[in-house]
């Protein structure tokens, strides 16, 4: 990551971090930049490990999660530590093990269901939407569904259309689900722990290309009681001229863009959404009312995307504050091409964000297309 500056953010910190069930809404984290480094992979692995050790009802299931330690080694060491009853290798039947996970959650266990990628969750989407998301409501809370669906989401590299799609907007459209999108190791640890402890079904969208990346982590983040609130965005970098919203891998791109923009005298505020549902409309609108300009960034398709929802929120709540049209950067509106050059063109790049921000700030001539 190029020159990411981590800022101390926000208002008062809560002391209620040990709360198991409902993470409080107004927690913020701060830490010094001289902290230890940790990869996102280790952050996820340690979060799983700690939650499994804290709560015997938590178990992990999915294809290759046990003996193989996970297709991306996220479950490394867990089979040895917790045994085959709690780290279940399943047959290749997403619809089957998702249904089994939902059933286990109905009846008191807290499953963490790993999809080898979220592309394969399409096989099981009925269980996620029609069962997990709706059962608490339909049964009038007689059946709650404390389950986590997790795995890599969005584009990896060179794996083509059927392995490279962002499902954030899909799941975020459904009441009853919570949808989390970690970016850094701090996010990964804090949000996965929150997801496992949460009484509702959580879709936890990781990114394969981030697994190996290292981020600084504070002692507090490393503490086993660490947990982040669901539904709260994080201002990764403060600024006054333009707001850039992003989630998952795109947060890194947005931060790089902000660095470039800073050199040209544009001060960009970068919001790491962290939670797509609930969406932290308050943080987004507060920022836009300050900067009066907005660029949204996501890897998914533009139509009915996360950016579309953010635009609507800002139009509804802060229209009078806007000094420029909202710029929406998204993946190209085509299935992901395999060829590396085309793939690059189909995904947002740092330059796209820089250009869009400049346009919004009237520093460059508008382009025909943003991607």
């Amino acid at each position, binding site marked *: 990551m190029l020159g990411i500056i981590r800022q101390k953010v926000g208002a008062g910190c809560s002391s209620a971090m040990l709360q198991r069930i409902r993470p409080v809404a107004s927690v913020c984290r701060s830490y010094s930049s001289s902290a230890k480094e940790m990869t996102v992979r280790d952050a996820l692995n340690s979060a799983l490990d700690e939650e499994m050790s804290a709560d015997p009802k938590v178990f992990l299931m999915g294809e290759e999660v046990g003996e193989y330690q996970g297709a991306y080694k996220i479950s490394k060491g867990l089979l040895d530590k917790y045994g085959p009853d709690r780290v279940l290798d399943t047959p290749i039947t997403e*619809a089957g093990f998702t249904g089994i996970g939902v059933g286990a959650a109905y009846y008191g266990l807290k499953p963490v269901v790993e999809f080898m990628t979220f592309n394969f969750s399409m096989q099981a989407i009925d269980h996620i939407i*029609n069962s997990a998301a709706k059962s608490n409501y339909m049964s009038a809370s*007689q059946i709650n569904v404390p389950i986590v669906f997790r795995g890599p989401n969005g584009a990896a590299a060179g794996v083509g259309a059927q392995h490279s799609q962002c499902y954030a907007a899909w799941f975020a459209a459904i009441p009853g689900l919570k949808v989390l999108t970690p970016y850094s190791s701090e996010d990964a640890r804090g949000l996965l722990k929150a997801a496992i402890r949460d009484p509702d079904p959580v879709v936890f969208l990781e990114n394969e290309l981030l697994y190996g990346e290292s981020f600084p982590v504070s002692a507090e983040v490393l503490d086993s009681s660490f947990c982040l609130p669901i*539904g709260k965005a994080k201002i990764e970098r403060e600024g006054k001229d333009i707001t850039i919203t992003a989630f998952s891998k795109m947060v890194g791109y947005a931060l790089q863009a902000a660095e470039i923009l800073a050199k040209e005298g544009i001060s960009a505020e970068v919001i790491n959404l962290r939670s797509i549902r609930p969406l932290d409309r308050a943080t987004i609108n507060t920022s836009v009312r300050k900067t009066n300009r907005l660029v949204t960034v996501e890897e998914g398709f533009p139509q009915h995307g996360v950016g579309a929802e953010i635009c609507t929120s800002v139009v509804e709540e802060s229209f009078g504050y806007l000094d420029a049209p909202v710029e929406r950067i998204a993946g190209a509106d085509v299935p992901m091409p395999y060829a590396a050059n085309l793939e690059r063109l189909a995904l947002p790049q740092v330059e796209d964000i820089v250009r869009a921000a400049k346009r919004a700030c009237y520093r460059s001539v508008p382009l025909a297309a943003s991607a």
Partner: protein
Amino acid sequence: MMAAWVRNSANIMINRFKSKMGSLGMTNFSSWSSSFTRTFPVVPASCAQNLRIPVGDFSNSPAHFRFCSYRFESGKAETLSDDGDANQVLDLPEGKVKFSYELSFISESAEERECCYRVLDENGKQILPSSYVEVSPELSVKMYSEMVMLQTMDNIFYEAQRQGRISFYVTTAGEEAINIASAAALAFDDIVLPQYREPGVLLWRGFTLQEFANQCFGNKADYGKGRQMPIHYGSNKHNYFTISSTIATQLPQAVGVAYSLKMDRKDACVVTYFGDGGTSEGDFHAALNFAAVTEAPVIFICRNNGWAISTPTSDQFRSDGVVVKGRAYGIRSIRVDGNDALAMYSAVSAAREMAVSEQRPILIEALTYRVGHHSTSDDSTKYRPVDEIERWKIERDPVTRFRKWIESNGWWSEKAEIEARNSARKQILHAIQEAEKVEKPPVADMFTDVYDCPPSNLLEQEKLLRETIKRHPQDYPSDVPV
């Protein structure tokens, strides 16, 4: 009584296997009838028992098929080499496989269809010598009374739908024995994941007529707070999961619940019901496979009623029904006459004993017929002959058959019959009238339970709605408390 019936149920199986095994020789079922409790974590299926199961059973097939049959004796792989050709086996991770020197395919079907276990004939006479689990006079009468209640409830609720008082209904007509007899054979702690044609199980567990009516009328007292269409009952306190409309999703979920019971070492099993149509969903296959692999204590009860809305079973599958699919997944299975309450009760009792004590799944295919229309949205005379419906309704009615049996035992009379039907009718009409009087769920109930605790966006929506109702009261139903 327990010991007696376990032996009985084992004998049924022994006889069935003996008669089918022909030249395959001796079997040893002793370990089967001695029920044992397995400790957790469980041993792999292959060493769970020492019984010989004929895997390929083609004793009635042409000669070249017969040679393909082999016996499987777990833990004693060397006995495979009967012919002295000890090296002529393929050593695979899941066990050894013998070679055959004939170019032969496994037949797509057995020479004869799997038999159907039955105790009572169509006239309610006990077929001798049939083995079955004994039912006391009191239990028999209770089972019959509940079948009458179920029938009456169906008739009255169906009429209520026709009168426009409720939006939708599904009857259980023709499947009362499957409902009530299976429920009677279970323990209350056993967890039920139903499809939608099993309200009798809930009735048996003590869900009151008022509770049924409250759900169908979607009033404030409904446990689902009026959120689901009629007949989607559910009650935690009766260990009965809220019905899901999507076909077959309950099947893998049942395996998940069973896995949960297993982790908690509970002395209970899961029972899940589904139709013949449901077996075509991928979920059915995933559920059976997972249940076998995880050794989950779950009983799969398929109500094969011949129809899935307008699709006949011949368009649903080309196998010998559903029962044969059990073996393919390594699951012990039985086919039962679903219109014979005594057979149903016996089969489920035996299945439950095996599921709980041996921690294994069991598949039961109950043969029956959907006598009613699929639902109130259907007219089945458009796609099936009326005389077919009439034959099942009149000649094969499970309620009448069971009545004849208890009458022949001197436990029931014409007088008792009239009383039971009158009383059922009165109680149900009363429940409907009461349910209609209860007010609808309040506006607040629209926003609760989407999450464990409502997030800000929902609170805002609720506030907005209340303000709008206040401003335009004439546009909102007056019977919904704000």
